[in-house]
């Protein structure tokens, strides 16, 4: 990085953190620390929801995924608008009406303490595992691309996040999220513009789109259905709805966001904003990846984007074949743009497939998807923009992990400490414990970040991890909201049965992970209902 990049990077991160701390300077109560006194405007809540979900993984991995696999990942988000409407109509008013701090607190009001404790524990395990991954995602990439030490990077990011989250609580988290989301959009826009502007003379945006489409990179909708296919129209609409419903309706990191709204309508507007804005935003991110693909048709891409592995391949036969494949693909691309017919489109696709075969041989099928975007940024963006994009990556990692750390601390304090360990203490004591829990989860995130090593596409890893647990969480909340005759024990056993069903399905390896949410949720609801009916029958038969 050049001096200008360092200045822009430091100024951007410094401004975001200081602004968040300034906005949260009056936080002095538990309600202020955990729920921002339920005072935030809808636009802050809306962008905070978006930023918490859009981690660094989103920018690094999603763009790389479009480069390698095309835009079909967008189908993952097709269920999100449906889920947001349902959360807005049913979940948000239930949580706000009950006056709770956490979603799991509601479960005790509806069922019993053991169901609340079980679901809180599932959340702590699941989010506890994911938070390290979220923090590690940018570190591993910056290590390979810029040679930064990954432990130092995660430690630096972790300490900054712990600092502002401990001091300002959710108000600092939400206001830093707001700024980070704006910076993210600017950084991505810059990357997209550069990918188009740096194309050779005479080749424009339309040409770039044609090349990406000819190589199958703009295949946004897949109507063919396969249970094991992760992204198709049906799995996106059904599996995606269940996953988004579980994430936005039952995950404390999101529930806590919309509980901070000034009133129910402000919370609802923030959710409905995300319902409309999320798909276009993901389209924009994936399109950036597809345009990076077209850019590398004319600018020779490295043999592998994992720069640490390039040295070992230098001067080998495969490097020579790679050069030939790159040249052949570029020639086919120029012919296609000149002739614009189906025959040349097929010829370009064949040339691309030949290139891809050499690339896969060179990488030994190891996934270098996560390094594509940052390689492009550091090697081709002008001075200043590199610093901005690195700040975007840091900002995204910080906004997502601060949200997770804050919600983990909230559940630890409200659902564990205050409920089971030390009920009835003073507000100041709980505020102190909330800060302590935040420090603990922050340090835990930094330490567990190292476990994320060796994973393939990080965005898929995060979503798959969520899908192992979300079906169970969603099922118990559906029982709570829509099945008034189901009791606590039935719900408790239902959650255990749902989780068992998900882990069994996962072990078979036959079903795409988006379906885990549907299966888990279905088993919880069915088990809960059947046990309640059986319980009532037994009770009736005992009556004289």
């Amino acid at each position, binding site marked *: 990085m050049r001096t200008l990049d360092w200045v822009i990077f430091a100024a951007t991160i410094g401004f975001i953190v200081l602004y968040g701390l300034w906005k949260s300077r009056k936080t002095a109560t538990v309600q202020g620390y955990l729920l921002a006194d339920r005072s935030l405007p809808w636009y802050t809540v809306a962008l905070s929801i978006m930023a918490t979900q859009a981690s660094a993984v989103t920018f690094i991995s999603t763009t790389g995924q479009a480069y390698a696999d095309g835009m079909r990942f*967008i189908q993952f988000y*097709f269920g999100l*608008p*449906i889920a947001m*409407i349902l959360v*807005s*109509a*049913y979940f948000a*008013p*239930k949580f*706000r*009406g009950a006056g709770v701090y956490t979603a799991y607190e509601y479960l005790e009001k509806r069922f019993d303490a053991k169901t609340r404790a079980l679901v809180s524990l599932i959340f702590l395990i699941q989010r506890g595992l994911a938070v390290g991954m979220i923090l590690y995602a940018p570190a591993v990439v910056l290590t390979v691309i810029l040679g930064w030490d990954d432990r130092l990077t995660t430690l630096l990011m972790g300490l900054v996040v712990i600092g502002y989250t401990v001091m300002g609580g959710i108000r600092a988290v939400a206001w830093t999220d707001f700024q980070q989301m704006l910076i993210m959009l600017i950084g991505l826009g810059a990357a997209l513009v550069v990918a188009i502007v740096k194309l050779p003379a005479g080749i424009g945006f339309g040409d770039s*789109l*044609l090349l990406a*489409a*000819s190589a199958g990179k*703009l*295949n*946004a*909708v897949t109507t063919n259905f396969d249970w094991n296919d992760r992204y198709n*129209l049906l799995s996106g*609409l059904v599996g995606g709805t269940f996953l988004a419903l579980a994430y936005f309706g039952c995950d404390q990191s999101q529930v806590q966001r919309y509980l901070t709204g000034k009133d*129910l*309508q402000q919370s*609802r*507007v923030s959710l*409905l904003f995300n*319902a*409309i804005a999320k*798909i276009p935003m993901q*389209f924009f991110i994936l399109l950036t990846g597809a345009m990076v693909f077209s850019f590398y048709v004319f600018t020779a891409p490295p043999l592998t984007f994992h720069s640490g592995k390039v040295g070992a391949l230098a001067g080998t036969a495969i490097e020579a074949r790679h050069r030939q494949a790159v040249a052949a693909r570029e020639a086919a691309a120029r012919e296609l743009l000149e002739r*614009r*017919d*189906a025959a*040349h*489109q097929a010829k370009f696709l064949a040339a691309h497939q030949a290139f891809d075969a050499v690339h896969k041989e060179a990488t030994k099928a190891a996934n270098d998807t996560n390094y594509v975007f940052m390689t492009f940024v550091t090697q081709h963006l002008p001075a200043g923009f590199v610093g901005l994009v690195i700040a975007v990556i840091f900002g995204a990692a910080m906004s997502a992990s601060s949200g997770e750390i804050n919600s983990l601390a909230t559940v630890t304090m409200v659902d564990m400490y205050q409920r089971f360990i030390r009920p009835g203490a003073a507000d100041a004591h709980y505020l102190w414990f909330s800060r302590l829990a935040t420090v603990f989860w922050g340090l835990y995130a930094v330490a567990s970040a190292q476990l994320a090593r060796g994973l393939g596409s990080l965005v898929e890893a995060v979503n798959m991890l969520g899908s192992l647990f979300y079906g169970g969480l969603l099922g118990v909340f559906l029982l709570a909201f829509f099945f008034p005759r189901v009791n606590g024990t039935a719900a408790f056993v239902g959650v255990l049965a749902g989780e068992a069903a998900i882990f069994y399905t996962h072990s078979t390896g036959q079903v795409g992970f988006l379906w885990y949410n549907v299966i888990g949720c279905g088993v919880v609801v069915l088990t809960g209902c059947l046990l309640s009916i059986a319980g009532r029958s037994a009770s009736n038969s005992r009556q004289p």
Partner: protein
Amino acid sequence: MTPQQEPPPFLGTWARVYWGVVLYLAAVIGVLMLFTASFRL
């Protein structure tokens, strides 16, 4: 009026919001399919 019965912030009734999201999704999927198909020579 309980919170659950409150009207949505847009479009007046929840039925209209549900139809709105169905139309929005249909439009998004349709546009994306057209977008992909428009580059098939």
